[in-house]
């Protein structure tokens, strides 16, 4: 009797697994999002509790501290306004020159703010969930960034939330260029690859850099813009050290990411 029960239970579960693993990509993604949707109430409650805790914490901050902070932010706002005026001038000039040369006009970035709601529970992927989805015009492969630099790209999109593949995940490889920090000249190009040698989640490898390139620690790494996902010129990180590969044919560098992926709370999605 028990053996029969074992066989039925095992058979049923195996059947479900086989069906799910053999689903085509789109239905599998939809099923995954639908199942993950069961956690939306919990994520919502957790978000509200966190917000409430922050509000309580804010109400306990002394008035003098708030006034100091307000003053600092006013100053920062003034400085940023001045910078914006200068940038707008440069932007107009750039557009005129591009038009004169017949180059394609640059479109200003349109950004959608999002809150990080969860991380991948498995240790062998680097993905996270954000609280914006298709109703916020989010589409797969859009870039995700913060003011500090690149975070990753959008993977699956549900109506109310999306998954983001972080830089350093095996499914987030892209071309990058190394710049000299002083004159911004491009030194070399390579591919950002997950680092398999360190526990530090903030280190990735820059691989397939041609041997003889002048790579040095401290140089900045930006997105190369050669692919279709990330636009050119988003900060990725800084080179930490360099080593030679394949008998000197290639160079490989370890790159410290500019964004601390362990402490992300809010991100921006580039709507392009």
């Amino acid at each position, binding site marked *: 009797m*028990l053996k029969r*029960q*074992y066989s039925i*239970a*095992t058979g*049923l*579960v*195996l059947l*479900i*697994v086989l069906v*799910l*693993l053999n*689903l085509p990509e789109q239905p*599998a993604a939809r*099923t*995954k*999002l639908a*199942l*993950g949707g*069961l*956690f939306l109430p*919990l*994520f919502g409650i*957790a978000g509200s509790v966190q917000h409430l805790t922050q509000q309580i914490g804010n109400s306990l901050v002394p008035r003098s501290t708030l006034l100091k902070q307000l003053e600092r932010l006013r100053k920062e706002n003034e400085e940023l306004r001045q910078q914006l005026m200068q940038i707008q001038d440069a932007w107009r000039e750039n557009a005129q020159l591009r038009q004169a040369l017949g180059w394609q006009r640059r479109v200003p970035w349109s950004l959608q703010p999002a809150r990080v*709601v*969860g*991380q*991948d*529970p*498995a*240790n*062998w*992927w*680097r*993905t996270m*969930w954000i609280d914006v989805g298709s109703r916020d015009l989010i589409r797969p492969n859009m870039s995700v960034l913060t003011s500090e630099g690149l975070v990753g790209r959008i*993977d699956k999109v549900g109506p109310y939330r999306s*998954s983001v*593949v972080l830089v*350093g*995940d*095996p*499914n987030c490889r892209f071309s990058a260029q190394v710049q000299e920090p002083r004159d911004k000249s491009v030194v070399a190009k390579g591919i950002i690859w*997950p*680092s*398999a*040698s*360190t*526990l530090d*989640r903030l280190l990735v490898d820059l691989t397939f850099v041609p041997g003889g390139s002048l790579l040095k620690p401290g140089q900045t790494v930006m997105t190369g813009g050669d692919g279709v996902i990330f636009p050119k010129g988003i900060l990725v990180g800084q080179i930490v050290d360099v080593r030679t590969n394949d008998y000197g044919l290639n160079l490989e560098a370890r790159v410290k990411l500019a964004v601390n992926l*362990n*402490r992300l709370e809010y991100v921006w999605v580039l709507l392009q």
Partner: protein
Amino acid sequence: MNTLNTIAILLIAYLAVFLESYFRGLRNLVGAQIDLLPALMVYAGLSAGISTVALLATLGGLWFDSLSANPLGITVLPLLVIGLIVHSGRDLILREQRYAQFMLGLAASAAAPLFSVLALLGLGAEPLLGWWSLWQWLVMTLGGAAATPFCFHVFDRFKRAFTYQKLQETSFRPDREIKRDRGPHLDYE
């Protein structure tokens, strides 16, 4: 009680998967997230029926995969295998012993990620693996092992709270009571 126990196990599994995704303190601290589903499966294997084991493997695995980049269904298999092994050997295991719970949790938490990664590699996926994966595996194994006795403790308390307690039988039997009173006495006088 069986239905209530199954519902409680599934509810805890649902909460465990959510917590694994929501809280990143431990991951930031030690570099790895602990998986609580193998510990729960050990409890289910020793304390519930085969249907509960199958349900926990299916729903727990699917919930886990829905929040992860894993292909949907890949986590179900390791959980099912652990559940079946524990359930089939339940008569030989001293489930009340903390040491036995810890050792079972250790074995289950060590086997589950290994099996998952092997299944992923078999499917052609490229999980992020390196030398530090050994450290993550160690953290998952020890964390899961420590969580197993805690799991038993929580569910035992839950059971005590929601079921009728067994009446304690005493050695007293009214028909064998020795009555020590004065009469009836024979009057020899």
